[in-house]
């Protein structure tokens, strides 16, 4: 399943944590019409580059699906940041 939410946590030197939930499903919803509009151009570009467009779309979908559970954390005494795709 494609990721629906990304969580960004920021911690400052006063140990205050600011957590931001990014609703990725809204991003996908916004990108969907754009993708549909651009699909003919993408198709032509794929053919021009001799790339199978259907395979390209399938791979993009697979990569989006695989993004779930990616986590990045950077911690320091004075600050910290974490990024988690759910």
């Amino acid at each position, binding site marked *: 399943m494609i990721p629906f939410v990304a969580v960004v946590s920021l911690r400052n030197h006063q140990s205050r944590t600011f957590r931001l939930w990014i609703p990725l499903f809204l991003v996908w919803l916004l990108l969907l019409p754009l993708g549909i509009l651009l699909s003919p151009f993408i198709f032509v570009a794929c053919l021009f580059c001799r790339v199978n467009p259907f395979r390209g779309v399938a*791979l993009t979908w697979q990569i989006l*699906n695989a*993004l779930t559970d*990616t986590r*990045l*954390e950077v911690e*320091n*005494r*004075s600050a910290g940041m974490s990024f988690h795709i759910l």
Partner: protein
Amino acid sequence: MNEHRRQILQMLADGKISADEAERLISASEESSGSSTETPFAPTKTRAKYLRVQVDTEGERDNDGPTKVNVRVPMQLLRAGVKLAYLIPSATLQKANMAMHEKGIPLDLTQIKPENLEDLVEQLNDLTVDVDQKEAGAKVKVRVFCE
């Protein structure tokens, strides 16, 4: 608690070994005890789910104290990522081959099959990279492993 672990903890308490060494000894003893109970015909190797990269720095390099970086990448993402190589047109692969030959790397990218790339990712399960570096008063520890 088994006898090995007790001995290691005792050595740690006596200050004969550091916490890192104790952790390594405990994991080694767990691995050896785990492998001794395995039957040779029933491999218990599980498929790794994540590729982890941990970087710990401590020392005088910066004033913010120790910095820890922890990255967890799903193996599924790596598998999907290497499949992108299927999309590379053959003309581009030829160009890359020529560029690598010029640099003295005798590798023919056109010979790499999708199965080879998947095998490559599968073999990452056994990958562990540990780098300890001490330079200019700062200690950097990098660990790359699958879990």
